[in-house]
């Protein structure tokens, strides 16, 4: 008995210590060379995404169809599609990057358009040598997936979906409040007046979900055109204009104003943006809802519950523009052994035929603009499509600034709306974060 335990202990201890002789993090400056099983070995292509886990949803279903089509066109190749959890996605991606493909990591990764692409560009393949001019031309959103967040920069990912924000409204609530639902407010002051009327009729004017601070972020993006010209927005993004600038202050004051005038439903501070804020709107408990263009909290979902004739859509009053960006994109990992095959996979996803399927199955706008416009039957979707076609769109203000500064904006937005600070105090804090980030990047 004694001998058995002794032997077991020794064997166990030795097995652990000897098996991991090279254990420990790689010393600084020494990147591990890829060895052992390589990415995508054995005729399979590994794809990571956060949307295919739920095949009941349109997007998940569509992605799985794409895999099947790819396998059919490439006999002998198996698409190993790994559905990751969205919540932990970037933590897991980071670990895979640290392992630099030693563990047979993904060949193709889904990634959000915007600063995220730059955060991870060290492990993404520059795509300029793969991209044919016609593909570049067909797809919109390159400025959110390219170096320097500029359309001229080297692209690191191919945009797949078009995402953005628009204001939806419930026509019957407006009618009851004595507002003509076919003439939505055209200026900010008109908007406030309509909200007051709605409030007087006993309904909350705006469905808001500020639990995570994301609503404030959306609001600033959708209303930024009221105060900032394209040039000024770019300066702010590059750090050449201070966040304490009076124009930015005017923007934040509008947010504060909405809170102070009681324009949101009760309990908005603890309401999650997804799906709860949209649900408040769908239950008919609020007249307006700042929603998305694609996937969820959008014309399709709202129209199905409220009735498409009862639903209206507009840009932020007084702007005539909508912020577009932040949909998903696909990139190829730097450690992939088969970047050509990976690019063929991405090409298939963004092909004209799949753009149509994406529109049909997921009710979402594809980045590839060669989709068939006749597929859009919904009246509100038609309006959005016309804005996209007329280029009445711009990249969201906060889509091109570092994640850290966005986080600071979200938290200060919450602090303003929960009465913990005022606009100057909030902007000072944001500017401090922005300045530190800029100093860090300059190094």
């Amino acid at each position, binding site marked *: 008995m004694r001998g058995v335990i*002794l032997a077991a*202990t*020794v064997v*166990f*201890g030795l097995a*652990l*210590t000897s098996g*991991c002789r090279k*254990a*420990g*993090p790689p010393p*600084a*400056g*020494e*990147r591990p060379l890829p060895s052992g099983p390589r990415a995508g070995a054995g005729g399979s292509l590994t794809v990571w995404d956060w949307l295919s886990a739920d095949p009941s949803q349109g997007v998940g279903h569509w992605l799985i169809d794409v895999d099947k089509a790819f396998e059919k066109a490439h006999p002998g190749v198996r698409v190993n599609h790994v559905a990751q959890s969205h919540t932990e996605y*970037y*933590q897991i991606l*980071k670990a895979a*990057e*640290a392992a*630099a493909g030693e563990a047979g990591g993904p060949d193709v990764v889904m990634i959000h358009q915007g600063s995220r692409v730059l*955060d991870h560009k*060290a*492990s993404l393949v520059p795509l300029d040598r793969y991209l044919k001019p016609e593909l570049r031309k067909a797809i919109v959103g390159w400025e959110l997936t390219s170096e320097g967040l500029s359309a001229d920069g080297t692209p690191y990912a191919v945009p797949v979906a078009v995402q953005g924000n628009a204001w939806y409204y419930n026509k019957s609530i407006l009618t009851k409040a004595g507002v003509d639902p076919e003439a939505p407010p055209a200026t900010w002051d008109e908007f406030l007046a309509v909200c007051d009327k709605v409030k007087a009729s006993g309904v909350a004017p705006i469905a808001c979900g*500020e*639990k*995570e*601070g994301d609503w404030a972020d959306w609001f600033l993006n959708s209303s930024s055109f009221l105060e900032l010209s394209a040039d000024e927005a770019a300066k702010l993004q590059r750090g050449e204009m201070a966040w304490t600038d009076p124009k930015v202050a005017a923007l934040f004051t509008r947010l504060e104003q909405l809170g102070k005038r009681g324009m949101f439903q*009760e*309990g908005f*501070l*603890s*309401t*999650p943006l997804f799906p709860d804020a949209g649900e408040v709107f769908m239950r008919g408990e609020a007249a307006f809802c700042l929603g998305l263009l694609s996937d969820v909290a959008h014309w399709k979902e709202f129209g199905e519950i409220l009735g498409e004739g009862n639903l209206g859509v507009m840009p932020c009053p007084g702007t005539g523009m909508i912020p577009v960006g932040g949909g998903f994109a696909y990139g190829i990992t730097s450690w992939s052994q088969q970047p050509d095959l990976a690019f063929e996979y991405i090409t298939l996803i963004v092909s004209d035929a799949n753009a149509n399927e994406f529109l049909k199955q997921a009710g979402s706008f594809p980045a590839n603009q060669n989709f068939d416009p006749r597929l859009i039957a919904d009246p509100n979707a038609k309006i959005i499509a016309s804005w996209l076609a007329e280029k009445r769109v711009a990249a969201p203000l906060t889509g091109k600034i*570092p*994640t*850290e500064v966005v*986080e600071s904006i979200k*938290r*200060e937005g*919450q*602090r303003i*709306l*929960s*009465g*913990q*600070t005022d606009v100057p105090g909030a902007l000072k804090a944001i500017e401090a974060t922005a300045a530190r980030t800029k100093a860090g990047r300059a*190094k």
Partner: protein
Amino acid sequence: MVFAFLFLAPAAALLLTFRVVPAAGALWHSFTEWDGVAPATYVGGANFARLVGDNTFWRAVLNNLVLVLCVPMWLGVSLVLALLIHQQVPGWRFFRATFFLPSVLSPVIIGTLFSAILRRDGPVNRGLETAGLGALAHDWLAEPATALPTLVMVILWGVFGMGVIVFLAGLSAVPSEILEAARLDGARGWTFVRYIIVPSLRHVIEFWAVNLVVWSFTSLFAFVYVMTGGGPGYATMLVEYQLYLEAFQFNHMGYACALGSALFLMVLGVVLIQIRLMTGGDD
């Protein structure tokens, strides 16, 4: 003596390989600028200099200290309930079974459930309003004044059942003769608890107290992540949560490692003081 080391070998091997060595790496990286992937650059004490002037960090430390001050409450509730069950109050089997139910749920689930239940239009506030106490209704997790206390209560709900199990197991080791003799001597109520139970459970109470302290610093991530995200603003920011943001959202792995090192020293300090106070330094 040889046997002592032999018996400790498996634990030591595992801890060295999967905790100490990675942690040593993190300590080294707290003196670097690093994104977690590319080669790190040595920057000396720059991260710690930033930490000293970081308002978010100090706010998080303050919130963490509030949580540490709640440990006696978390512990006391479990102890009292365990004693009552041990005394076999009417219905004790039912209570023992139901008190465990929260432990079945992971923090993520507890957080999700309570986020829904504590909403402004949720059942808690509805109940208060029905009872004519509408004035007490709050947006519990979203108001700066109530967010942290509410978080404390939800955590209490999540952990008290585990404390009850630990104390019940501890009580089962107290020889029943001691309990009987004390009772025959007329020890009742507080005297019984203070002079009979607490001394017999000393090691178990110390264990659970230390565990709760460590846990309040290093294992509340999921609760915060799901219920408040550290907000509103920074009202429920904890060091552990800030560390996550810096490491995985902002790509400042070097600074996150510095936060981790500071957190380690802080918790170790608190725990050592605590053990000293509770055991008086004896072994």
